[in-house]
């Protein structure tokens, strides 16, 4: 005989508090899934805020029964509901509270009943329920819990386990039911959020609280193959569509309010209408182009509170940004020739559209450069060759290209970075070419590599494998180790008009050597901003920018 746990008021509060923390760990993942009804990337946040409000209100329960805690939490969810998913969640809470009634403790049977009632309530506030959303997931979870009880199971953990499994399968199936999800290559965000909450409750009851602090909820994988998530997907969803308008939310407090009446009055005023609540407090959520007229109508019904009007077109733009997409509106793009992952990151993080892999001893072909010029999403392209030997092939590529191409004659990585920093998004092509070319002179470059044979150049006797240092491309120093060459080079320079020393270390320098060099520089040049970047470049142990 399995032990049957009954959940009392404190446990009920705690299990949802733990589930809320569990949800919090997943918020950004859920936000990123959000494409329906409006891809504004806030589903996870809205659900979390709604749950928080429910948990906070749980403390205002009038007695120590589960029923009164659930009622308090339902009220908290209603007043704290945010966004579409939050309002639906508040209805789920209403259903839970109604089903639990005045019970002092609950077991599997009561939980199943609460889930069923929650699923029914979730659909009531909504004008046209859509399948493949949180509504479907709530229904599937409820049905699984109910059939478990009908099979004679009364243990709350077993009932919840079947509900969580069903919710997970249901989330996986959402792209089958809702095309917009399939096209975007995601599962439904609200459904995922609901699954995470149930999963959190289950884990808490199974005694996994400690584990929950170090783990993170999983995003359910879709049950059908999805197109890999590319940026064009959400963009194409809305092409030629009307603007989203304003997400308008508020509460009306009054007497004898009728959700039905308000709903019928507002139904033609916009999309995604939800009207929920009781005769004293009604919450309204609608996507509309004219929030003013809706607010005016609402003020005639009672006192309005917690008004929020958000421009969803703005939210959608923020969402696109969140997706790290490259919006195809670049007028001028920069392309840099770089080798080494870290160095490529430096250029990309400063706005370079594409990288052509290559550098010293591995010059890219004209074709390599040309392909990138043609591929990049802009009509005008500025190339940063970053190496003396790559300037000629860039010029060849320019001649063959169908686009307008400009070449900044950068001969080193630091020159390329300086030129890129001078790029002005507001300026035209010619001004940019001029400013960027001029910026080359604002920086000095030290490159340190190893001699491949013994030789004598410019009065320097160099032994094989010795470290040799170039200042702006000219060989001027040699020593046994990299640090020694750097020291000698810096000693010989007038540094009075410079402020920043950046070191990009290459693959052949050990962490110890890097730290030693950094410490010695910091000691010697305390007034400088000294930065160390793992450039990951071959050939050069160290590339140093002085600007």
């Amino acid at each position, binding site marked *: 005989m399995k032990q049957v746990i009954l959940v009392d008021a404190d446990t009920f509060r705690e299990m949802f508090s733990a589930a809320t923390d569990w949800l919090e760990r997943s918020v950004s993942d859920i936000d990123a899934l959000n494409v329906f009804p409006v891809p504004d990337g806030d589903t996870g946040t809205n659900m979390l805020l709604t749950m928080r409000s429910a948990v906070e209100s749980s403390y205002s329960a009038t007695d120590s029964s589960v029923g009164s805690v659930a009622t308090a939490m339902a009220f908290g969810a209603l007043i704290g509901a945010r966004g579409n998913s939050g309002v639906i969640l508040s209805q789920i809470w209403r259903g839970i509270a109604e089903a639990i009634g005045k019970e002092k403790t609950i077991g599997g049977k009561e939980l199943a009943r609460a889930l069923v009632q929650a699923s029914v309530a979730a659909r009531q506030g909504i004008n046209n329920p859509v399948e493949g959303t949180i509504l479907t997931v709530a229904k599937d979870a409820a049905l699984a819990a109910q059939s478990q009880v009908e099979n004679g199971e009364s243990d709350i953990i077993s009932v919840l386990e079947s509900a969580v499994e069903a919710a997970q399968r249901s989330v996986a199936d959402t792209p089958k039911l809702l095309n917009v999800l399939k096209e975007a290559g995601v599962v439904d965000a609200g459904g995922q959020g609901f699954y995470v909450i149930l999963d959190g409750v289950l884990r808490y009851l199974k005694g996994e609280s400690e584990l929950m602090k170090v783990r993170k909820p999983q995003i359910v994988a879709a049950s059908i193959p999805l197109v890999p998530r590319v940026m064009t997907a959400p963009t194409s969803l809305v092409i030629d569509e009307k603007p989203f308008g304003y997400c308008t939310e508020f509460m009306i407090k009054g007497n004898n309010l009728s959700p039905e009446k308000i709903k019928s009055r507002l139904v033609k005023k916009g999309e995604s209408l939800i009207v929920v609540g009781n005769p004293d407090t009604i919450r309204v959520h609608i996507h509309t182009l004219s929030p003013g007229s809706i607010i005016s109508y609402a003020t005639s019904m009672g006192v309005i509170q917690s*008004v929020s*009007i958000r421009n969803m077109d*703005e939210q959608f733009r923020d969402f696109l940004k969140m997706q790290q997409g490259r919006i195809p509106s670049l007028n001028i793009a920069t392309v840099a020739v770089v080798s080494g992952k870290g160095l490529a990151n430096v250029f990309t993080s400063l*706005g370079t559209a594409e990288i052509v892999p290559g550098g010293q001893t591995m010059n890219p072909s004209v074709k390599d450069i040309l392909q990138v010029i043609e591929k990049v999403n802009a009509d005008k392209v500025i190339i940063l060759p970053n190496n003396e030997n790559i300037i000629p092939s860039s010029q060849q590529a320019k001649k063959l290209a169908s686009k307008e191409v400009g070449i900044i004659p950068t001969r080193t990585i630091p020159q390329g970075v300086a030129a890129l*920093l001078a790029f002005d998004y507001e300026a035209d092509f010619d001004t940019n070419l001029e400013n960027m070319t001029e910026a080359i002179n604002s920086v000095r470059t030290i490159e340190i590599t190893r001699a491949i044979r013994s030789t004598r150049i410019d009065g320097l006797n160099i032994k094989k494998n010795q470290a040799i240092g170039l200042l702006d491309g000219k060989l001027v120093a040699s020593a046994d180790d990299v640090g020694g060459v750097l020291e000698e080079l810096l000693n010989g320079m007038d540094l009075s008009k410079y402020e920043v020393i950046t070191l990009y270390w290459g693959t052949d320098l050990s962490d110890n050597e890097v730290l030693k060099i950094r410490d010695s520089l910091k000691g010697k040049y305390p007034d400088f901003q000294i930065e160390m970047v793992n450039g990951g470049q071959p050939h050069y142990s160290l590339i140093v920018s002085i600007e």
Partner: protein
Amino acid sequence: MEVKIVTDSTADIPLELVGELDIRIVPLYVNFQGKTYRDNVDISREELYSRMISSPILPTTSQPSPADFTRLYLELSCESREIVSIHLGSKLSGTYAAALAAGEMVKDKCHVEVVDSSLVSGALGLVVISAGRLARAGGSLEMVLANIKDVISRVRAYGLLESFKYVLHGGRLNVVGSLLGNVLNVKPFLKMRDGMVHLGGILRTRSQGLDKIFNLIKDTPALEDVIISHSTTPDEILKLKERFGSLVGNGRLYVSRLAPVLGVHGGPGTLVVAAQGGALLK
């Protein structure tokens, strides 16, 4: 009966002028870890910035509700039938829309003229201060509105941030592509144009950024008033006061603290310099 001037907490007006000119301010909101704070009322700058630095979850901001505006409008309607409500640009925030909706709701009680300044921070502040002075001097509604239009066409604003982190998170900066600025320590230089915040350049050090702003202010034709708003750099502001003080001539140099709501988007170290001068070329 004097025209009443209302603005929002993003105007960064020096505290003493708010009282002197009787400017009424509606706060925006800062949302942090599930709680909502009224800008500059429930959350101090110090608290905000220290939490921004230590918290892995960044705060967000939201506009005032129409009800926040109706409350103030109705209160003012006892003193004056004419209210001018000047707000930060509608491309940056829904505050203007909320004020507009509120104005509509109280139209039986008073006449509210809601202005979309297309500006923010000290630039909005300069417009509001000028309107406030004129209203105090007994200027009519028409005069005040004409003055606002004129000043809007003559202010510019520049910003300097310590990093890209917060501004990219806030999504109000108009940039495209892969720009993240998170590998090298770089300082974004921003400028305001057409109601949007644009990236005007990327600098390697703060002093380069300060020089850039100084030169732009120096080259401003017919320079009048300047407002410098800072977030967390009180020592630097003393030096800047001296440095910029030499530029303003007959105008005034104001110093103010940046609104927490703007600090959320710019991050600790944000500096905004706004200047009023000859009309901007379109």
